[in-house]
């Protein structure tokens, strides 16, 4: 039952990615609506998996790597749906839904064993750490999709070779503004998640911040610094456009990498 529901969600995202892509390239009327419908089907089954799993484990979806990955992917889709509804950026799905699919695909390789939530007086900290980081991450996923779109469009306008994508993509300024909005939501949450995680780690292991596993932590620090640069650069130093888009694309790749190493 759970396997079926899981597969429905995963396959829906794969299908929706393909449909969005077909719409992006061929502009077949109706395919866009179909893709959004497919995402909704995926999201419903995805929600069901998280509900079933939580009922079984008796705690929220953030204890094992598998749970975190499933929850991460779920939030990416939820935030995508909100953005789609609120800002109506056509074609964003082509760049964001594949991310949700890939995370779920990754989750299938993880152990589905049920682990009890670590009993400790600091469990609130851990819950906070994971929830905040994951919401922040979902916002970054949107910024990533928008960033890719920006870079495609910027390249076309700058090089004066206006291909098909030039007609499809929204204006540079609106993409730039939205990237900033997504990062402005993601960065503070992610920072809080980062801090609570660090505090939890120190309290648990009674160790200093610097004794953490460096391999796991470095990409995360780099990602965090990148987003910090994007956030403060845009809001304080007037950085715009390409820099911001590149930052949000590279930042996402590093954070994604670190999460794979981390959880």
């Amino acid at each position: 039952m759970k396997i079926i529901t899981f597969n429905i969600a995963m396959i829906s995202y794969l299908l929706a990615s393909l449909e969005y892509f077909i719409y992006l390239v061929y502009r077949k009327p109706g395919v866009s609506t179909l893709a959004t419908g497919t995402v909704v089907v995926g999201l419903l089954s995805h929600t069901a998996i998280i509900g079933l799993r939580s009922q079984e484990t008796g705690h929220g979806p953030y204890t094992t790597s598998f749970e975190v990955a499933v929850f991460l992917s779920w939030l990416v889709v939820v935030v995508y749906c909100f953005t789609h509804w609120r800002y109506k950026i056509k074609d964003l799905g082509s760049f964001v839904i594949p991310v949700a699919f890939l995370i779920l695909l990754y989750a299938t390789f993880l152990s589905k064993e049920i682990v009890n939530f670590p009993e400790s007086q600091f469990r609130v900290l851990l819950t906070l750490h994971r929830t905040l980081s994951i919401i922040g991450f979902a916002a970054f996923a949107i910024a990533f999709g928008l960033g890719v779109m920006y870079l495609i469009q910027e390249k076309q306008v700058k090089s004066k070779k206006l291909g098909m994508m030039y007609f499809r993509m929204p204006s540079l300024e609106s993409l730039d503004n939205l990237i900033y909005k997504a990062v402005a939501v993601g960065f503070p949450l992610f920072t809080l998640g980062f801090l609570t995680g660090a505090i939890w780690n120190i309290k648990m292991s009674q160790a200093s911040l610097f004794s953490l596993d460096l391999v796991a932590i470095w990409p995360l620090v780099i990602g965090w610094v990148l987003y910090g640069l994007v956030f403060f650069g845009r809001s304080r130093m007037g950085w715009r456009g390409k820099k911001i888009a590149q930052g949000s694309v590279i930042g996402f790749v590093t954070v994604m990498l670190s999460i794979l190493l981390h959880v």
Partner: protein
Amino acid sequence: MAESNLVIVGVNHKTTPVELREKLAFTKGSIEESTEKLGSFPEVDENLIISTCNRVEIYARVNDVDKGIDRLKKFICDFHMIPYNMLDKHFYAFREEETVQHLFRVSSSLDSMVVGESQILGQVKDAYSLAKSLQTTGLILNQLFEKAFSVAKKIREETGIAESAVSISSAAVELARKIFEDLESHTIMLVGTGEMAELAAKHLISYGVKTVYVASRTYERATALAKTLNGSALDFEHFKTELHKADIIISSTAAPKFIITKEMVQTAIHERNNRPMFFIDIAVPRDIEPEVNDLENVYLYDIDDLQSVVNANLQEREKEAELAMGIIQTEVSKFNNWVDSLDAVPTIVELRKRAETIRVQEIQKTLRKMTHLSDEDKNSLHLMTSSIVNKILHKPTVNLKKKTQTAEGRTYLKAIRHLFHLDD
């Protein structure tokens, strides 16, 4: 297959030079006169004239296509008093379903000089409503033109034929809309008062731009243009310090050297916190240093760049035109089916066949019982029943043939087929 007897004779920008086309043009008044004349020819049942600067065409339903085409060609020559042998090689003529296809291509703007331009559809519509008010069109031409409008709409919606910009100023507007979120809150600055710059500015204003600055070496010219554009004039020496206020800069001065340099733009972009700037250099020789395009968040297009955008878009339209031809083929065969359905002949044949079958059945039944009759008597009975059937069917046949020439034709055909069970 039924014959629609539709023909079209005409000249267009592809077959005829403008010197000749302008001599052949019909004005609204002369259309009234000509259609009346055309209607008086026994060969011509319905007619309609389209006259634009790129084409002069007469669409007609005739009773003999070859004679009809000759008649229309001669008419055009006579009306404009041009010798036939001078015009003959420029004419094109289509018959039957080629006429349908030709009109669909014309109204969908596939036959236009700039494929996909939207003006032609309006011109065809005007020609149609004029013909309708003059009552020179009937059932077939009306249906043909109504269909042509819906085909044009369909093609516009389902293909990208009219999607991209195909003039310098519309390409500039399109680019501006891909750089900026909405044009309303943005500012344009004209440096120099060239005609093309004015055109581009007007185009941008029609998309919502509200704030306009005009700078020119002659301040009076700047003021005059600023007035027409509802903007404000700038002193020419001043525009450099005001540059950062503008989002879109259109330059068209006659200056021999670059008047906007990379350094100036660098300062401006810094002052405006890296908000994007779009430079359009329409001047020849160019006004803006090409290296300006290397700056981040700055986009520079000169006249050649815009022209190549236009060319690429035109090529794109040609591709879309192939898609549109597919739609036209389908619609042409649909129209043919409609013409077929109008034809009374098959229905009349079936009706007579049905009556004849009944007559033969019944007379044979009777004759079987009346064995005493001689062959001669039997023959007389056959003749009598045949003539009853013929008499009964004569009027309906004639009326049906007449009615199928009118708008109610199909209703009559349907009623007959239904009442006599011809479709079972």
